[in-house]
C-alpha cells in the first residue's frame, strides 16, 4: 500500500484533476463543476490561512537557531524574535481582554515602528535610483543614448516643475508611455502568457515534473 501511495502518477493525476476543475468553469458554465471549483478554492483558502502559522514557526526556528549558535548578526535575530512574539500576542483578535488591532502596544508598534520603517525602506530606493541614474545614464553609444533621452523625458514628464515650464514634456512622456512602452510591455505579456500556456499543457500531460520530488526523476 505504501509503495502504491509513493507512485509518481498519483500527484500527477491529482494535479491534472484539480487543474481541470479550476480551468473548465473559467470558460464553460457547468453548475456542478462550478460548485466543485468554488468548494476546492475554499480548501485552498484554509490551507493558506494555516500556512501563516508554518511561517511563524519557520521564523522562530531559523532565528532561534541563529541566537542559540551566536551566529553572525545574532542580535538582529533577537529583535525579530521579540517583535514577532509581541506583535502576534498583542494582535490576537481578543478584544474582550484588550488585545487586537485596538491594543495600545499593537497600535504603537504599527504606527511608530512598522509604518515609518517600511516607508523608509521603500524610500531608500530613491537614493539608489538617483545614484544609479547619475552613473548609468551616459551616452556611450546609440542604444545608451536612446535610453538616456527617453529616461530623462519620462522623468521630466512626471514632475510638475518641468511640465509647467514646458507642457509638451507631458505630451512626449504620454507618447513614450502609450506607444513604445505599451508595445514592449504587450510583447512581454503575450510572450509570458504563451510560455505559461505551454508550461500548463506540459504539466497537464505529465511531461513537466519540475514541481515533483525536486525535479521529478522517474521512480
Amino acid at each position, binding site marked *: 500500500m505504501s509503495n502504491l501511495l509513493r507512485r509518481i502518477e498519483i500527484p500527477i493525476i491529482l494535479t491534472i484533476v484539480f487543474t481541470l476543475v479550476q480551468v473548465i468553469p473559467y470558460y464553460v458554465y457547468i453548475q456542478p463543476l462550478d460548485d466543485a471549483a468554488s468548494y476546492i478554492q475554499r480548501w485552498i483558502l484554509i490551507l493558506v490561512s494555516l500556512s501563516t502559522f508554518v511561517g511563524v514557526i519557520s521564523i522562530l526556528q531559523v532565528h532561534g537557531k541563529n541566537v542559540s549558535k551566536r551566529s553572525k548578526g545574532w542580535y538582529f535575530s533577537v529583535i525579530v524574535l521579540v517583535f514577532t512574539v509581541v506583535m502576534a500576542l498583542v494582535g490576537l483578535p481578543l478584544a474582550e481582554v484588550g488585545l487586537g*488591532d485596538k491594543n495600545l502596544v499593537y497600535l504603537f508598534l504599527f504606527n511608530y515602528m512598522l*509604518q515609518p520603517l517600511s*516607508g523608509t525602506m521603500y524610500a531608500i530606493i530613491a537614493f539608489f535610483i*538617483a545614484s544609479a541614474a547619475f552613473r548609468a545614464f551616459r551616452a556611450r553609444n546609440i542604444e545608451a543614448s536612446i535610453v538616456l533621452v527617453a529616461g530623462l523625458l519620462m522623468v521630466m514628464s512626471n514632475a510638475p516643475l518641468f511640465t509647467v515650464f514646458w507642457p509638451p514634456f507631458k505630451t512626449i512622456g504620454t507618447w513614450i508611455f502609450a506607444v513604445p512602452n*505599451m508595445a514592449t510591455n504587450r510583447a512581454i505579456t503575450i510572450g509570458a502568457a504563451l510560455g505559461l500556456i505551454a508550461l500548463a499543457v506540459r504539466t497537464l500531460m505529465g511531461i513537466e515534473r519540475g514541481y515533483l520530488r525536486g525535479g521529478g526523476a522517474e521512480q
Partner: protein
Amino acid sequence: MDTSEEEELSSKMAFLEKFMDMDRRWVYLLSWIFVLAPLLYPLGLPIPINQEAIKWYDTIDKIPNGSVVIFAPMYGTSGMPELFPMTVATMRHLWSKDIKVIVVTFWTEGPLVFRTLLTQVDPTSYGKVYGKDWINLGYVPGSETAMSSFGRDIPGTVSSDFIEGKPTTSFPIMANIKTATDIDLIISIETGTPGATEWLRQWQAPFGVPMIVGCIGVSVPGMAPFLQSGQISALLPGLTSSAEYELLLKKPGLAVAGVDAVSMSHLMVVALVILGNIAYFATRGSKGGKK
C-alpha cells in the same frame, strides 16, 4: 598651447573626472537635501492637472447613485508614502456620493492601512452608516485563488466582517451581493501582486466588472497594455497624479504637500545626468579620459 594653459586644462579635466567618479554618498546627501528642503519649506510650485487625474475623477464622479463599488487597498505599510494620499482622496470622493462601498483586501497589511485611513476620515461626517452604506470585509488570505473565490461567492468566501465580526449576510449592504456580477466597479490601489492583473483575470475578464487602478510609479509601464485595451478604465499613477486628483476634489492633502519634493528630486536627477554627460564628453578625448 603653453605650459600654464596645459596645466589649467589638465586641472579642469581632473575636476570633471572627479565629478564623474563622485562618491555615491554625495549623491545620497544631495537627494536628501532636495527631498527634505521642499517638505520643510514648501515652494508652492503650480501643479498642472493632467488627463490621468481627470479620467480618474470623472470615472468616480459618474458612478450612478446606488451602485456598489469594491474598494481594495492592495498594499502594505511600505506603499503608504506614495499610495495613501490617493487612498484617502478616493474614499473621500466615494463617501461624498450615494454609492455603496465594500472594502476588501488581499494583502495582509491592507486592513491596517484602511484603519489608518479611518483615523483621518470619518465616514459619519459624510452621513455614511456602517453596514448600510459601507462595509469592511478585511483581509482575505489566498491571493489570486481568494480573489477568484470571492468573485464566485462573496458572502461564502468572507463569512464575517472585519470591524464588528458579525455575519456578512446580516448587513443591509450585503443583501443583494452574491457574486462579482453584483458589483459595478473595482477600485484597486496597489503596489504589486496580487493586484491589477489578478483582478483582470478573476473579475474583469470572466465577469466583465469595470476596474480602475491606482498604483506606484514603477508599476505604471506594465499597466499600459491593459489601459490601451480598455480593460482598465482609468489609471492614477503615483504621487503627482494623486496631487492633481486632490486639487480636482478641492481637498489638498498629503499628495499636494509632497509634490514639491517630487519636482525637486526629479530636477536633481536631471541636472546630475546632464552634468555627468557633459563631463563624460569633455573628458572622453582627453589624455586618460573616460572612454
